[in-house]
């Protein structure tokens, strides 16, 4: 599903060059749940952004479903991204002035899903996550845990093949964090591939494999368990 060959990312500011990713070679198979760990600044979020096609690699190759996407035009990558990838971020990234329903609906406005289907899909997710009664509320009227559930609902409403999650429990207390991890585990069990960046060893072990990074490089890979 995802494969990189000598993937590199270098930032250039004035006269300083910063290497965020240095010869990263990883492979993630369909159905896997992979956690990426490492200290702040090790390049794990950059890796997630490049694999999520919201940042460009400066070198190497990135194959998504067998197609090299690192050098595609923005238009083509955008199309692949919108139909295949879902994103969950630490800060939820909800729009405060849109209701819960509208926030979840948002990605479908960019993939031309018909109105009747949109309504059905959003309602299914609201039901499944026990937030139906919150559909007309605004994000700030919800608890952090509920906000992150809305964010997860938005990430999966287009039925992505891969979910990319950057510290999805970073702003949550442990009970709400557990809820989100449970949700990701269920999505993985139903076939969605997941790549998650986290600081927490506890969260990382929900995955079947842990990749550890340091200074822009992959240093170890551990199998935690077999995936389905």
């Amino acid at each position: 599903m995802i494969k990189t060959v000598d993937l590199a990312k270098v930032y250039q500011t004035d006269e300083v060059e910063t290497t965020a990713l240095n010869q990263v070679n990883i492979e993630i198979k369909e159905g896997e749940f992979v956690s990426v760990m490492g200290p702040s600044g090790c390049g794990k979020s950059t890796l997630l952004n490049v694999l999520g096609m919201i940042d460009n690699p400066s070198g190497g190759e990135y194959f998504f479903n067998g197609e090299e996407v690192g050098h595609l035009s923005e238009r083509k990558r955008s199309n692949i991204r919108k139909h295949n990838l879902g994103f969950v971020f630490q800060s939820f990234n909800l729009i405060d002035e849109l209701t819960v329903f509208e926030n979840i609906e948002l990605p479908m406005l960019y993939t031309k899903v018909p109105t009747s289907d949109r309504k059905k899909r959003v309602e299914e997710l609201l039901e499944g996550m026990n937030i139906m009664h919150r559909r007309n509320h605004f994000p700030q009227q919800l608890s952090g845990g509920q906000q992150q559930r809305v964010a997860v609902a938005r990430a999966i409403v287009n039925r992505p093949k891969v979910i990319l999650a950057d510290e999805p429990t970073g702003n949550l207390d442990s009970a709400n964090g557990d809820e989100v991890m449970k949700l990701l585990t269920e999505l993985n069990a139903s076939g969605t591939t997941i790549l998650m960046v986290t600081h927490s060893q506890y969260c990382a072990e929900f995955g079947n494999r842990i990749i550890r990074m340091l200074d822009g490089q992959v240093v170890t890979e551990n199998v935690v368990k077999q995936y389905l």
Partner: protein
Amino acid sequence: MIALKNIEKYYTNGFQKTWVLRDITTNIAQGEFVTIMGPSGAGKSTLLNIIGMLDSGDKGEYHFLDEPVMKLREKRRHELHKSYMGFVFQAYHLIDELTVYENIETPLLYRKVKRSERQSMVAEMLDRFGIVAKKDLFPHQLSGGQQQLVGVARAIVARPKLLLADEPTGNLHSAQGEIIMDLFKELHDEGMTILQVTHSEKNASYGTRILEIEDGFIREDYLVRQGGLIGH
């Protein structure tokens, strides 16, 4: 445009009532640029959110363009909010996986604006804010100041009558903050009504009137003197 009468907001904890807003009575006319100031926890953001219909008061009356907001059905409230208001937040609230162009376009998708019209409205914003070259970039590829420019562009792309801003420069360096405030001033000169919450006297000096709030009450209400000096 906005008429508030005896607005109260409180939380009940067991038998204890915690007041957030008390006896808020004031009018804001079209074309005003009003700043809400006061210490943290005074109720400033709550007042902004009630006026913006993201939250509602527990008692009192609120008329927006002569409609009794607190008696309206949620659907109508939502329509008013969507047709007349734009929001800017301290934390930008951009969607990380959408480009600058798409982030600005978002409010138009909910208003069912035609594609060709959307394109010209977004292009106008990109042009006005000098960010045409950034249109295909993602939020994390921009500086904080640029992200907030995109936040403001998104707030005004649908041409709202009222712009609500909660600490819009709170995360910015002073130079970036000035660019945002100059922009607000321009929008105000063009006739937009603006309501901002801020801690900064400098930002308040861009406006025409100041409401000082403390412990949920309006303590002071005065005009800003021409030339940007604040006084009673």
